[in-house]
């Protein structure tokens, strides 16, 4: 088989409804951004799953490393005072 150049890989994010977050749905190959968005429409929104599409070149996406997941996220581990349930409220107080 002759070796041909691959289309670059794009990561696709879809917003299902106005006001919601764009969510990662998968990836696809396309020659350019326009083709990525048009193909994403055909691949990921055949049943009105979205009204907005983001396409990001996969090589431009950077991720945290799973191997140092523990150390990386542990500054948040012992800070219970960041949660409302940490505080003692008098029973009589309402709407707080």
């Amino acid at each position, binding site marked *: *088989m002759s*070796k*041909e*150049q*691959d*289309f670059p*890989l794009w990561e696709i994010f879809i917003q299902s409804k106005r006001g919601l977050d764009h969510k990662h*749905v*998968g*990836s*696809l*190959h396309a*020659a*350019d951004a326009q*083709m990525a968005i048009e193909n994403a429409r*055909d*691949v*990921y929104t*055949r*049943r009105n799953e979205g009204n907005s599409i983001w396409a990001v070149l996969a090589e431009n996406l950077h*991720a945290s*490393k*799973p*191997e140092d997941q523990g150390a990386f996220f542990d500054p948040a581990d012992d800070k219970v005072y960041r949660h409302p349930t940490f505080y003692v409220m008098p029973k009589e107080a309402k709407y707080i």
Partner: protein
Amino acid sequence: MAESKEEALFQEKVDAEQKIEPKDWMPADYRKNLIRQISQHGHSEIVGMLPEGNWITRAPSLRRKTVLLAKVQDEAGHGLYLYSAAETLGIGRDELNDQLLTGKAKYSSIFNYPTITWADMGAVGWLVDGAAIMNQVMLCRTSYGPYARPMVRICKEESFHQRQGYEIMNVLSHGSPEQKAMAQDALDRWWWPSLMMFGPSDADSPHSAQSMKWKIKRQSNDELRQIFIDRTVQQAEVLGLQIPDPELKWNEETQHYDWGTINWDEFFNVIKGNGPCNKERLTARQKAHADGAWVREAALAYAGKKAKKKAA
């Protein structure tokens, strides 16, 4: 073989029902197994478009044609979801393509059977998609995240595939005697190959035990096949059609149907490339890929030109 510390941690995660993600450490064989399984699954979706594509231009009404077109388009989407899931494990799309086009990769043997009458569109949707759904519902809980997530999407889309097939069977089997005979003939030809879709019996399935331990698979081939039979018999009764198995009988004790024996020689023979349509399917894919080469080249050239203009 002693387990490494990494391997033990990996298994712990799997046992705790935590999904494995692309950048996580995983045993080399887990990766290899998954690449094989996901790519075969993807190839099956792609090749699976051919037997039904055969009837798009000859569908008996505009409604049926629209539906069939939408179904085949869904299968193309499924192929793409699966290819991109396989790619997260480090294999390239070009390599996946090559493996299919050179005949190195396998796909579900069911697609090497011909679709010779319109009733085959009914039987394929009802039985082939029905069997595929059973497998895919299980895979929604597979341990590899990028494989599990598209399965959820696929299962949502598949449910219309099976229903449109059953609808065709229902109309034909309650139509004229000729139509009913056509539906029965399709069931006769698709029944056994559909049961083969679940793969060899557990005892003869080389990857099964390891796949279960890694929770790639969650139910055994035989287990899924039995559930499929139990459900389908009742559906055939509603159609007034006979399942082509003289040994099929309800078993009060097990609360399952007893049934006959699969011709595994036929199964392995089709897998080896000697089914009625193996050659035709492969040739069709090779031709489609070759005929599309100029489009891919043009798209890349156009993208390059646009990028240059933007930079200038």
